[in-house]
């Protein structure tokens, strides 16, 4: 369990889309959103922002849907990758993905997140700590901790903290 996982905290996300821009740039060399492996959905009226992308499922539906075994798991990073030498661009994986994380790039090929071979550009671009790359054994620890704090401070309202709010 020494691999790393991408974790997203919507409470900290500000909707700046720097992750999208960074992803697009590192994969293609131009600034835009078309070839980003991540998407940001924004509800600006309420301040809700959600980043969606590949969760590298296990077992992965895209891998199971692929008829030519072009999708495989990298044992080192535990990420789900596409082998473009085998891929026939049939898009079966696109429809198999429950999260819409596989898309068609501007060159017409199916594209998905590859965790930048273990050093994701989106995480480096996130200045708010909403996207983090953490060791698998620590997944969810922050959420659990926030919950613990909320239980702890339930009796004393002045000590309550909220996710996404920096203390004054």
């Amino acid at each position, binding site marked *: 369990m020494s691999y790393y996982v991408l974790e997203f905290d919507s409470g900290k996300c500000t909707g700046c*889309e720097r992750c999208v821009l960074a992803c697009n740039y590192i994969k293609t060399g131009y600034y835009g959103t078309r070839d980003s492996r991540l*998407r940001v959905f924004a509800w600006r009226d309420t301040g809700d922002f959600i980043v969606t992308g590949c969760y590298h499922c296990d077992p992965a539906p895209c891998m199971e849907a692929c008829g030519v075994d072009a999708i495989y798991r990298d044992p080192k990073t535990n990420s789900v990758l596409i082998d473009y030498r085998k891929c026939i661009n049939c898009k079966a994986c696109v429809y198999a993905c429950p999260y819409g994380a596989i898309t068609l790039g501007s060159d017409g090929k199916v594209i998905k997140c590859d965790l930048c071979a273990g050093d994701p550009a989106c995480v480096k671009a996130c*200045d708010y700590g909403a996207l983090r790359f953490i060791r698998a054994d620590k997944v969810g620890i922050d959420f659990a901790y926030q919950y613990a704090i909320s239980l702890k401070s339930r009796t004393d309202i002045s000590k309550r903290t909220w996710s996404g709010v920096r203390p004054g």
Partner: protein
Amino acid sequence: MPGGYVGRIAFIDLSKQKYHVEPLNMTYARLYIGGKGIAARYLLDYLPRGVDPLSPDNLLVVMTCPANGTAAPASPKYPIVTKSPLTGYWLDTHSGGAVGVELKYAGFDGVIISGKADKPLYLYIEDGKIEFRRANHLWGLRISDTRRAIKEELGDPQVKVLSIGPAGEKLVKYAIIDSEGRQHGRGGAGAVMGSKNLKAIAVRGSGRVEVALPREFENIVEEMEEKDIFKNPEAEFGIKWGSISLGWFTNEAGALPTRNFQTGSFELWSGIDALAVARVRVKRAACRQCPIGCHNVILITSGKYAGTLTEGPEYETASLLGSNLGIGDIGALAKLNYLADELGLDTISLGGVLGWATELYERGIISIEETGGLDLRFGNDEAYVVLTEAIAYRKTPLADILAEGTRRACERIGRDSCRYAVHVKGLELPAYDPRAAPAMGLSYAVADRGGDHLRSWPIGPEVLGRYWLGAKPIAIERWSPDNKAIIVVQQEHQYAAKFAAGVCDFCCWDNERLGLLIYAVTGFEEYKDVKGFELAGERIVNLIRVFNVREGMTAKDDILPPRIHEDPHVSGPTKGRVLPREWFEKMKREYYEIRGWDAEGRPTIDTLKRVGVDEGVLKHVTW
């Protein structure tokens, strides 16, 4: 195509429902960088002199900047440019909403909209194509409902929408254009859009933006992020609190407009200051590409306005709709902020108008019959909520008058009411009282779009007492007119060039790095040197002054409201202070001299040649 531009400008004629695309004029791009600079040059070409701002002949220009859409930090700002219905002069109004960036990805550096649709329309711009779509069903909707309806109709949640609210449709002279929750606030651009029967512009793009010098660009971006943002104590306030933190500084300096500018500090400020906002903050938010994230999303959980969820208040809003109306309750402020954003009103002008009307009522100049039974007293938030809605829909006779802005409203009411109107050229003053910072008076008087704080910000150096002219710090005496004009001039250069590049005013105050950023994005060698950057700023200031003088602006318009010179502050640290007329005249004279403008405030031919405007500008010089 040099980096930073996509090279296409769309000319949209709403009357004929046709458009054509022209290549971006690269001479203009090189000289005027982008945004307001390029837009000003196009306005000179295409907007005839003396056009009525609300007629079909006026142009509405949405222009992007070279840094938009790249990874440059805090650089999503883009302007909407037109002739203002509030002032009758130049108007550029910026926001960091997502539309500017998206417009560039959609393949346009800018769109220039003329004419008037016979029925309500909205535009759908997608990847180089523009569609005219019916908007009958959207007419009358509030701003967030409009945005939602358009996204649903187009079936794409990632469409970015520019839209007006009911106030824009009713041609309220200070109506805003909303850009995905951020506002093009000042000067009434929303009314221009409403006069064209244009409800919204939806934009979606899958295109690309490239920079000219990728390696230099990455270096300068890294340097800016470190020096201008993450290790900059000034930026830290923005990161931690947002613009509202400015209120601590102005309240202490006596520059916080209170009760229609009657005084400069507010005893209830702690009820609506940055701490009060942080207490009800549920979320931070940011403009696209921005690592600062200065927006506060707040939720009011108690009191009569419980349940109000809004983004804001920014400092200007908290001041003009808060202290300027005698409101010290965060709930009431949030409600007014929410209403203004949803109905489409500029919070600064709205606060100015409401404060002014309240003072008239308290002085007995307007009666309770005229207010329609509203007890319009400072601090009466319920009356303000009612009146705000009435103004947006022009519901009552008084609201109909107030919807015209203080200058026109006072002319219609008469009865000495103009004595209490606080505006420059018709644009209500923002939240830095010149009686606490004399140079701020000059800044307002000579700002290109009327009373505005985003053309220079001398209050900072004045109150802190230090200013760097080049590398040499000079001492600044706060209560004196000396050495003030030069600060305003230099800051105007920086702001003009920086905004033209697309960088936010809330970040990055180093001319050298800003110049290098423009150089890296566009590849234009002249910006590598800080002098080239400053000269470009000066060029843009002069270009816009040419536009304004052509529209009839003279030195007589560069004045301040009588209150600033005659009514001393009644309390606080600046008690008894006014801005003496002779100080103001001295600063103004110096300003014209440094600028190389004549005594009438007109740029001379020599000055224009020195700053290097293109030949085409000179033929507009008829003086």
